[in-house]
């Protein structure tokens, strides 16, 4: 419950304005972006609907409209607007939307730069499902680097790099599909599923996200290697 600082009435935590005196409520410790914009905890959302909600709420909270209000209301407007902007940014992007869902469902972060694990030791935590691809890619990259040192035609190496990239890209597409499926499963069963099933879906989503981050890092590595080669090929 929130307490209205103007009239002292109680208000449900997802209300923005006091049901009693209709003044803007202080934000308090809100944590659920979905509820804040009035959406259920679902992963497949209509982007236009989200945008409309964002605009409508902006029109309700924005500090422009509280210029003549009391200091407390001005602060509430500033906090609610800032929070709304965060919420919109997080919900707009499908990946950060899943990350937020995992966070409010109490799962550990799926971000790759999670400080608790230390970000330097990427190699130590290769997701098991990717071991084969990572192994093959690293061998290929090593070989390409060696050939580059010994003066091999960079054009040829670029072609090899493109070939090495393919299986990783296929993996990424597969992951996009899996995330899509899991999201749909969450939306249809979601909160009403038995606790164990709910947990399993969330764990699976988190697993896919971790793998996805890893794949993106791999693609980044290939990208860097490629631009290095392109630079060499331009220097005659």
């Amino acid at each position, binding site marked *: 419950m929130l307490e209205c600082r103007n009239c002292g009435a109680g208000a449900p935590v997802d209300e923005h304005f006091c049901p009693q005196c209709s003044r803007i409520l202080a934000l308090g410790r809100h944590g659920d972006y979905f509820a804040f914009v009035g959406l259920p905890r679902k992963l497949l959302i209509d982007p236009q609907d989200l*945008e409309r909600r964002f*605009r409508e709420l*902006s*029109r309700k909270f*924005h*500090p*422009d*409209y509280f*210029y*003549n209000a009391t200091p407390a209301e001005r602060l509430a407007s*500033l*906090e609610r*607007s*800032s*929070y709304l*902007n*965060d919420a*919109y*940014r997080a919900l707009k992007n499908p990946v950060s939307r899943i990350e937020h869902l995992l966070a409010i469902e109490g799962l550990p972060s799926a971000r790759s730069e999670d400080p608790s694990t230390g970000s330097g030791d990427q190699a130590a935590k290769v997701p098991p499902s990717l071991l084969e691809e990572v192994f093959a890619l690293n061998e290929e990259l090593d070989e390409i680097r060696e050939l580059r040192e010994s003066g091999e035609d960079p054009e040829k190496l670029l072609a090899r790099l493109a070939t090495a990239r393919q299986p990783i890209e296929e993996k990424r597409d597969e992951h996009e599909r899996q995330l899509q499926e899991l999201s749909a499963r969450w939306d249809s069963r979601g909160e009403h599923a038995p606790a164990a099933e709910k947990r399993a879906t969330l764990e699976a989503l988190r697993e896919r996200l971790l793998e996805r981050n890893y794949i993106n890092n791999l693609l980044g590595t290939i990208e860097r290697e490629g631009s290095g080669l392109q630079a060499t090929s331009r220097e005659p």
Partner: protein
Amino acid sequence: MSKVVGIDLGTTNSLVAYADEGRPVVIRDDNGDALVPSVVSVGEDGTIYVGREAQRRLLAAPSRSVYSVKRFMGRGIEDVEHESALLPFWVSGDPGGVVRIGIADREFTPPEISAFILRELKHRAEEHFRQRGDFDFEVDRAVITVPAYFNDAQRTATRDAGRLAGLEVLRIINEPTAASLAYGLDKRSRGTIAVYDLGGGTFDISILKVEDGVFQVLSTNGDTHLGGDDIDRLLLEQVLAEIAGPKEQDPTTVEAIRRAVIQAKWDLSDIDETEIRIEPSPAAHTGYRRAITRADFERIIRPLVERTLEPCRQALGDAGLQPSDIDEVVLVGGSTRIPLVRRVVEEVFGRKPHSDLNPDEVVALGAAVQADILVSGRREMLLLDVTPLSLGIETMGGVVSKIILRNSTIPASGREMFTTGVDNQTGVDIHVLQGERELAADCRSLAHLHLGGIPPMPAGLPRIEVRFQVDANGILSVGARELRTSIEQTIEVKPSYGLTDQEVERMLIESFEHAEADFEARLLIDARNEAETVIQATDKVLRRPDFAALADEQLEAGERERIDAALADLKAVIAGSDRGAIQEKTLALNHATQHLAEVTMNRTVREALAGRNVKDV
């Protein structure tokens, strides 16, 4: 109710506008001129001159005048050293501190100089409301515009300037966004707009989405040191190279050349060939003439204009859009009159840019609309802007940890946890930076914060939550709390390139002390302007082609002589600082020309009527 205005505080020119029942209007002087040149000049007696008067003095006494001060707002000496060589005024300051501008024996900070310009605009607006017969004509609140790509220090410096000018700054808004508001008024438009704003000193590109009256900025980019000034400098350097000689480098000659190349630049927007021409004078002894074609001009400035392309691509990329997604391109800023600029913009976005509104005035109009939204409670329109640069703090090894990302919609907030490294440590130092680079050394230092009052605890135990809040002005404030004890921390802020609150307070007090002298100076300028108006009106009549005939028919014996004498008397005193004499001679000239004015008016009316008769037949 006192008045609220919108102000475009520009590098070259400034303007003030207000909303008349929701419709924005630019305030003009008696000659219909809306632009106040952003030039400040200090007289021998310490009098401050602003605008046209200061611009005139820039030629006569260049070392006592300052222009383009906006380029120095919120900057350090190391940022501006390279460009100060050709400026007539002294620029100094300690490394890592605020720039100081020296004029004669006085020293000013850029916000103080800007405050003089703002005070002039405030005065202009008050004069307008007074003449309109408004009972309460005081202007004490304003929305002031800044380039979208201004960082925190530059915004704060602008807000300080407002305070120093006796204005409550209701809001700092971004120039391209303001322009889009002014455009949005006419058509209840929706779609995706790119605003390309190339002004006197700064370049901005903003991509906006407009729907249901909400103007949402998707991304912004730019260069706060790229504009018409740089074009002028290129031309100026070209001319100086051609007439090389130590004599030509003195400030008076440089200013004369600057004036001439600016005129040539303007000409070349309309015609294909012109002349850079400096009349011989005691200072520029030989004079100078040189033909320049538009092709020459474009060859010289092309590299500068092309520097605007990368920010455009970056902004499109950040918004996740392709050029073909843009429905409209709007041009803002005087430099967009240059045909090459228009062609380049058209190439980037693949469509002809819009310029229905005067590119010099559209920003001030938008600021007036925003001022009206703030005080009237009108809710048809809402501006949602973004912060142009990421905000972060320095962490171990000089790496920046970003807390609020660039292009985040503002207001925006972020939190970061800190703890102590030593037992019973009661303070923590935090270095706040702005920029996109990874290393603190490559980003802009905003401030050093010192968190104090942490309850003594073993190292690592305190959990200090620091809250970063960027408000709707794009200005940062910081709060901190130790979560175990819920004790709010004290924060001392030492801005890197700004004034502390105490410094602003001191300047405010000083400005009150100067207020009386400034008030007298203002009265003198008003008297001169009044005199100038009467002289011009008289000259105009005397130069009429039919004056001889008119004089023969209508003037009494000796009347012409009396007029000439009064005119000469007034011209003799107008440049002096005796206000009483100027007013007296103005009155005398007015009196001497009264009869002449009547007969001229009658003749004009007769002619107009006669003209109509002919047409009717």
